[in-house]
């Protein structure tokens, strides 16, 4: 016999799929429910899995009152809710932005720029190497706007657009694959779990 959770999941799936016909109140109900449940769920997980072990448990088990400092800074974020207090929320925001920039700039430079540049310097003895080197140079030429794109620069930029088209095509293909997979998952749920039509 189908359990209550499966019936609810089936009903909500059909509500969402009804949007394919046209916008309707059932779809909107399921959409709002999803937003509400997601926020509620995240709040519970953060309280139970982060605030409890990192603040409450530390104070109660080891008397580590230093954790009250970051906790208080976190609470200052709520000062934005009252206009006259909202300036207080700048302190934790400034800390977060300062920490974020300080930590991420060298890491991004290392992982996304330096390492990627070095890996694009391939041996031209293999076809892969030639494609990578030509692809990188021509695509970057397309995004070089300080000089008019004509002559050699124009031809390189034109070649770069073909590499970009290949990238967009591959990304589109993979995205279609991804969306079809999601549909397979839902249909499998309807056919197998809800109606027992397949084993």
């Amino acid at each position, binding site marked *: 016999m189908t359990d209550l959770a499966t019936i609810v999941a089936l009903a909500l799936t059909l509500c969402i799929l009804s949007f394919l016909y046209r916008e309707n109140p059932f779809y909107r109900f399921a959409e709002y429910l999803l937003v509400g449940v997601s926020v509620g*769920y995240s709040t519970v*997980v953060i309280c139970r899995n*982060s605030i409890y072990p990192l603040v409450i448990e530390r104070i109660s088990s080891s008397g580590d009152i230093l954790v009250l400092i970051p906790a208080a800074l976190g609470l200052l974020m709520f000062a934005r809710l009252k206009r006259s207090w909202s300036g207080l929320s700048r302190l934790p925001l400034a800390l977060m932005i300062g920490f974020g920039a300080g930590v991420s700039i060298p890491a991004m430079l290392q992982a996304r720029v330096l390492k990627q540049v070095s890996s694009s310097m391939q041996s031209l003895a293999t076809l892969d190497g030639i494609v990578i080197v030509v692809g990188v140079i021509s695509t970057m030429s397309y995004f070089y706007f300080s000089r008019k794109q004509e002559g050699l620069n124009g031809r390189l930029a034109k070649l770069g657009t073909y590499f970009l088209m290949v990238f967009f095509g591959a990304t589109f293909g993979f995205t279609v*694959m*991804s969306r079809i*997979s999601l549909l397979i998952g839902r249909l499998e749920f309807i056919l197998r779990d809800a109606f027992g*039509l*397949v084993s």
Partner: protein
Amino acid sequence: MRLLSLDRRIIYILVLLAVGVPLLFRVPLPVKVGVETRKVHSAIDNIPHGSYVMLSFDIEASSLPEVKPLAEATVRHCFQRDLRIIGLALFSEGAAIGYNLLVQVADEMGKVYGSDYIYLGFRPQYVSAILGMGESIEDVFPLDYLNNDWREYPGYASLGNYDDVALVISIADGSLPTYWVEYAGSRYNQKIAACLTAAMTTSYYPYTVSGQLVGMVSGLKGAAEYETMLGYSGGGHRGMLSQSSGHALIILLVIVANVAELRKRK
């Protein structure tokens, strides 16, 4: 051209039939295993028994149908190799998904919580969490998902930081593997692999070419490839016929629409 003004709902019905009908028939399709999948498989295969492997469930519920077969295959492989899994989540929605999946596969394979696997749960601010674990996992996760002190479990007393972790596998539907590469890979030389939704694949090829990712398994096709390597048929294989017929229909629609558009221009 009548084709160009075709009601979109007819296309939806065609896609529904192309994807849904094959699900009623279990016709196994041959699956060719790709290079990237082989890399992840051999990376796990080469880890000595008893080593720690960290599985980060960086996913949301919306991508579950695609990611679950992938995650399941990876977890099975780790358990088959007697690796000790450290599960965690850097998205709050992934917390329960990861825990349920680990428990389900562990129960099937007779693995025990505390000696074969633990689940640390969710931690917000993923950059801080990833960086913090490089110094001490205990500082970032003092308690596990069940709010127990995980250091008391027999298999995990010696776990300190990334130095003790042989491989991190980010099971993701977004950009989290990039952060693993930036903060755990670049800074702590941690080996990282990724299990991704298909839509993310092209974004991560540069990271496999540069060696920043040891490999990646992506999409339902990747799951089917991994299942083939492990010698079982799971969610990946089940979806391959539907996936293929869905793709065939989309290709047909793209061709028909382009021909119709060209004829209209003439």
